[in-house]
C-alpha cells in the first residue's frame, strides 16, 4: 500500500544524506547517523554563540536580576514577567529561543522513517555499531542487551543535557524534566537503536556545548565597586554637595523593574 506522506520528501532527503555518508565517505550506517547529527548541531552553533554572548552580557546585570527574583519569590508569574521585561530593556536574554529547537524535529522524524524503511528492506552494508556490540541499528532497542546499555547512556546524557539547557526553568518543571526521560524508557525500547544513537549524540553535543559555555561565561559577575553602608549612594552624595533640593537629571538611572518602554507600547496599541 502506497500512502503519500507529507514527510516523504524529508525522508528521501535524509536517506540521500545518509547514503552519501555511507557510500562516498565510507562510514558505516551507524556512524553516518552520528555524522548527520553532528552536521545538524554544527549548523546550530551560530545560534549557540549568540546565546553565549547574551549570557556574557547578562553577567553585568546579575545583581539586578537577583533583586527581581528575590522581590517576586513567591509569585512565579509576576517574577517571570518582570525578568522578561528586564531582559528586554537591557537587550539581553539568556533563554534559548524555541525556533531553532524545531529544526531538529523534522530530522528526527525523518530518521525514524528511514530506519523503519531500513528494517523492512535492509540496505547493503554494515548495520552494526562498534562491531558486535550493537548488531543491528534498525532493530528495536530491546532486541539485544546492548540496546539497554544505549538506553542507559541515553538517560544519562539526557539528564546532563537537561541540566545544561534549563537555565531559566523553575524547580518543579526541572524535576519533571529529570524524571520524564526515565519514565520514557519503556516506550523507547520500541524505537530503533539508530534513533537512540541520534539522541545520545545530540545530547552529548549539548553537554559539550554547555561545558564550553560555562568556560566562556564567568560564574561570578565582575566585582562591583565596594560600598559600605556608611557611604551614601552617589546621587545622594551629589545632592548633599549641592545642598539644594534634589534635581531631576537625565542621567538618573532608571529603576530596573520599571520599564518605560512597555508603557509606551501600551499607548501605541490600537
Amino acid at each position: 500500500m502506497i500512502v503519500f506522506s507529507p514527510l516523504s520528501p524529508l525522508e528521501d532527503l535524509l536517506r540521500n544524506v545518509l547514503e552519501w555518508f555511507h557510500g562516498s565517505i565510507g562510514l558505516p550506517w551507524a556512524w553516518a547517523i552520528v555524522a548527520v547529527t553532528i552536521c545538524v548541531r554544527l549548523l546550530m552553533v551560530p545560534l549557540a554563540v549568540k546565546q553565549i554572548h547574551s549570557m556574557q552580557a547578562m553577567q553585568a546585570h546579575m545583581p539586578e536580576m537577583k533583586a527581581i527574583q528575590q522581590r517576586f519569590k513567591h509569585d512565579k508569574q509576576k517574577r517571570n514577567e518582570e525578568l522578561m521585561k528586564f531582559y528586554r530593556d537591557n537587550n539581553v536574554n539568556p533563554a534559548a529561543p524555541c525556533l531553532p529547537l524545531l529544526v531538529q524535529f523534522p530530522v528526527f522524524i525523518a530518521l525514524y522513517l528511514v530506519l523503519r524503511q531500513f528494517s523492512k528492506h535492509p540496505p547493503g552494508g554494515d548495520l552494526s555499531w562498534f562491531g558486535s556490540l550493537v548488531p543491528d541499528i534498525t532493530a528495536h532497542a530491546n532486541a539485544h542487551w546492548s540496546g539497554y546499555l544505549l538506553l542507559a547512556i541515553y538517560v544519562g546524557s539526557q539528564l546532563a543535557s537537561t541540566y545544561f539547557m534549563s537555565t531559566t526553568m523553575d524547580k518543579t518543571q526541572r524535576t519533571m524534566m529529570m524524571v520524564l526521560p526515565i519514565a520514557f524508557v519503556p516506550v523507547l525500547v520500541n524505537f530503533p537503536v539508530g534513533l537512540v544513537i541520534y539522541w545520545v549524540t545530540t545530547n552529548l553535543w549539548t553537554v559539550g556545548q554547555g561545558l564550553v559555555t560555562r568556560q566562556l561565561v564567568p560564574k561570578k559577575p565582575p566585582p562591583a565597586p565596594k560600598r559600605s553602608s556608611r557611604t551614601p549612594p552617589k546621587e545622594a552624595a551629589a545632592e548633599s554637595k549641592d545642598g539644594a533640593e534634589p534635581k531631576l537629571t537625565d542621567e538618573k538611572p532608571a529603576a530596573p523593574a520599571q520599564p518605560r518602554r512597555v508603557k509606551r507600547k501600551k499607548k501605541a496599541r490600537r
Partner: protein
Amino acid sequence: MSTVLRLPAYLGVGLVYVYRYTLGVLFPGGCKYHPSCSQYAIDALREYGLVRGVILAGWRLLRCNPWSLGGVDYPHQQRLFK
C-alpha cells in the same frame, strides 16, 4: 462559543500537551518569551479557536528566534485578529 464548536481547539490543546510530554522532553530547551511558546499556543487556542490559535502560535514560534528580544507576550495582546 458552544462546547461543540470548541472541540477542534481542544484537540489542538491536546496536541500541544502531547508535544510537551514527548518531543518537548526529548529536546529540552527554554523560551525567550513569557509565557513560553507552548503555553502561548494553549492560551491562544483556548481564546481564539483552532484556526486563529494555530496562526497566532505559528507567528509566535517564528518570532521566538535568535534575533528577537523576547519578553512578555500574552495571546490577548495580539493585533492580528480584532
